[in-house]
């Protein structure tokens, strides 16, 4: 696999996403330019044809999402990249991919919103949109990198999870990570695990396109491979045929959830830093986690038992892991570039056992380590005096 970059090099976050996606076998990209994700489209346009892959700039994000689903159904791993406004436009078809169980990856390099906002400024305002952006109760997996190298690794993981579970996976970046340049050493070719969708093991005549295996995931035949079947966003039976039968509808939506929620150990990854004896736990993700790490270091130097909990998978939310923290911590701080979107989930998980405070910033600038450090000091004093 000479198509995987091997050397240490200075790389931008968006570029790392492209290289990771290519290493995972992505050979189709459809997109529409939008800051701060555009480099992903530009690099894909340059890199894909040389690998026998395809790039297309569609007329809008709705069409990009549709084309990606079409390509995936034809058997080619496919990815699209966008930012806030474009992410909103993609939502209906993301729901389609969830319903029809078509693997695909959507990169959202978040920018300040709502609306056109500040196109070049970072934010983390799409945490809830990533989870609940399309209508209906749909499962989705959302991953959140905090470094350039991790953007590469998570791009691979996003593709793998989407293939394994036949689900749209969202790589939720922020402008800081997307545009940051870091020196990275990437795994050598062959060192990364690449997962392919499960193929049917039966003859076409015996194929039920939506009959799940033991893992809840139905084997997937690609269009053109001899298994002729029907795909629809309507509620469908195991044959793929539309129905309004309430039992079939309920079974379907529950299975769509189960196939993810029965595998949380596989789907959820988190990172802890100095958590073992932490009395103050900072929860942060994406670029903010970098400031948080420095704040934790400084707090430790000042004799405060602080630690960092960083969800890498933010959806499904690592509820169990956060609940665990609440047993030992005296205070939890959630730092994020929004007005408390993930904080609500943290509160839900800790169930009032510990006080949760937010460090929030919404002026288009990254939260700094000293803001988090002051918050750590503040809750420490509060805890001592209270």
């Amino acid at each position, binding site marked *: 696999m000479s198509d995987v970059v091997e050397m240490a090099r200075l790389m931008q976050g968006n570029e790392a996403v492209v290289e990771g996606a290519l290493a995972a076998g992505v050979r189709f990209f459809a997109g529409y330019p939008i800051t701060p994700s555009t480099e992903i489209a530009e690099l894909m346009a340059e890199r894909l*044809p040389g690998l026998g892959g395809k790039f297309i700039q569609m007329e809008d994000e*709705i069409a990009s999402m549709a*084309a990606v689903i079409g390509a995936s*159904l*034809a058997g*080619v791993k496919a990815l699209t990249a966008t930012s806030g406004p474009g992410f909103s436009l993609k939502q209906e078809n993301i729901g389609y991919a969830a319903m029809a169980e078509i693997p695909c990856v959507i990169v959202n390099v978040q920018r300040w919103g709502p609306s056109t906002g500040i196109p070049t400024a970072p934010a983390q305002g799409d945490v809830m949109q990533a989870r609940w952006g399309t209508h209906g109760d749909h499962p989705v997996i959302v991953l959140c990198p905090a470094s350039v190298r991790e953007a590469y690794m998570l791009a691979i993981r996003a593709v793998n999870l989407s293939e394994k579970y036949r689900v749209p996976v969202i790589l939720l970046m922020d402008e800081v990570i997307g545009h940051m340049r870091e020196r990275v050493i990437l795994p050598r070719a062959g060192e990364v695990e690449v997962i392919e969708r499960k193929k049917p093991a039966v003859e076409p005549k015996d194929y039920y396109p939506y009959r799940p295996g033991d893992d809840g995931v139905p084997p997937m035949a690609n*269009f053109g491979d001899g298994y002729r079947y*029907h795909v*629809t966003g309507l509620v469908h039976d195991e044959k793929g*045929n539309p129905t309004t039968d309430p039992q079939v509808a309920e079974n379907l939506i529950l299975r769509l959830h189960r196939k993810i929620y029965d595998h949380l150990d596989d789907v959820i990854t988190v990172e802890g830093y100095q958590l073992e004896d932490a009395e103050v736990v900072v929860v942060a993700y994406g670029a903010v986690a970098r400031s948080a790490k420095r704040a934790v270091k400084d707090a430790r130097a000042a004799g405060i038992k602080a630690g960092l909990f960083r969800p890498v998978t933010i959806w499904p939310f690592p509820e169990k892991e956060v609940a665990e923290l609440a047993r030992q911590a005296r205070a939890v701080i959630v730092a994020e570039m929004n007005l408390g979107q993930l904080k609500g989930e943290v509160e839900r998980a800790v169930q009032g056992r510990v006080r949760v405070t937010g460090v929030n910033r919404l002026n288009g600038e990254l939260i700094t380590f000293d803001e988090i450090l002051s918050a750590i000091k503040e809750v420490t004093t509060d805890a001592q005096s209270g």
Partner: protein
Amino acid sequence: MLSQVESHLRSDRFPHIWCPGCGNGIVLSALVRAIEELGYDPDKTVVVSGIGCSSRAAGYLDFNTLHTTHGRALAFATGIKLARPELDVFVLMGDGDATAIGGNHFIHAARRNIDLTAIIFNNSIYGMTGGQYSPLTPPGKRATTAPYGNIERSFDIAELAKGAGATYVARATTYHATMLEKLIVAGARNKGFSVIEAITACPVGYGRRNKMGNGLQMLLWQKEQAVTVKQAEKMSPEELQDKIIIGELYRGEAPEYTAMYEEIIARTKGKNQ
């Protein structure tokens, strides 16, 4: 012939959902006969549709069938065709599907001249949602959302397709089902974006409200209104008012999108790693 048609249908899916007198079944069988005549391998044939009464046709066909979201069928089909150009892809859309919510995708698919065969079921109305006016509802006609008569001008699908860059444009009515079949065959053989407009009756959502009678009477109306391209050449614009010109309307030459992309691959493959 009938049995050949049947072999491409998912017979377990019948009875179909369409109302008595609906023209959608006529378009569906013309398509099946056309695919039979083209001799396409069913395993390599893809039918993509949008959302609407007409788009339900995909589910009755024993090919690789994809029933997508409202207006987006061409965008899904573009992904399939570009990913796997060896597949033969038909795209079925309603008039609202193709020219209202999907209007943008329609003109861009035409502009790219991507090798898809689009069949637009034009019943002049939003059938599925119960008879609201579409961009193809003629001025003055009534719809649930145009209770005092439609004041919007309608598109000419053929002119729109031609202007946007389609390289094959044709029109027939469900009364002229054999012609429709032949036009679909010719459109599929065109290596580029082909548009076949099928004028079809929605007696329930459109005909009744506009006093056009039942399905049969609407078919006869199609017969009355239709003039062939040849006949139309001898008629004045006044005589052609309200007439439906049927037949092959336009053929153009342009490079096809997926073939152009294959050339880029041939030029860059193995380089630029």
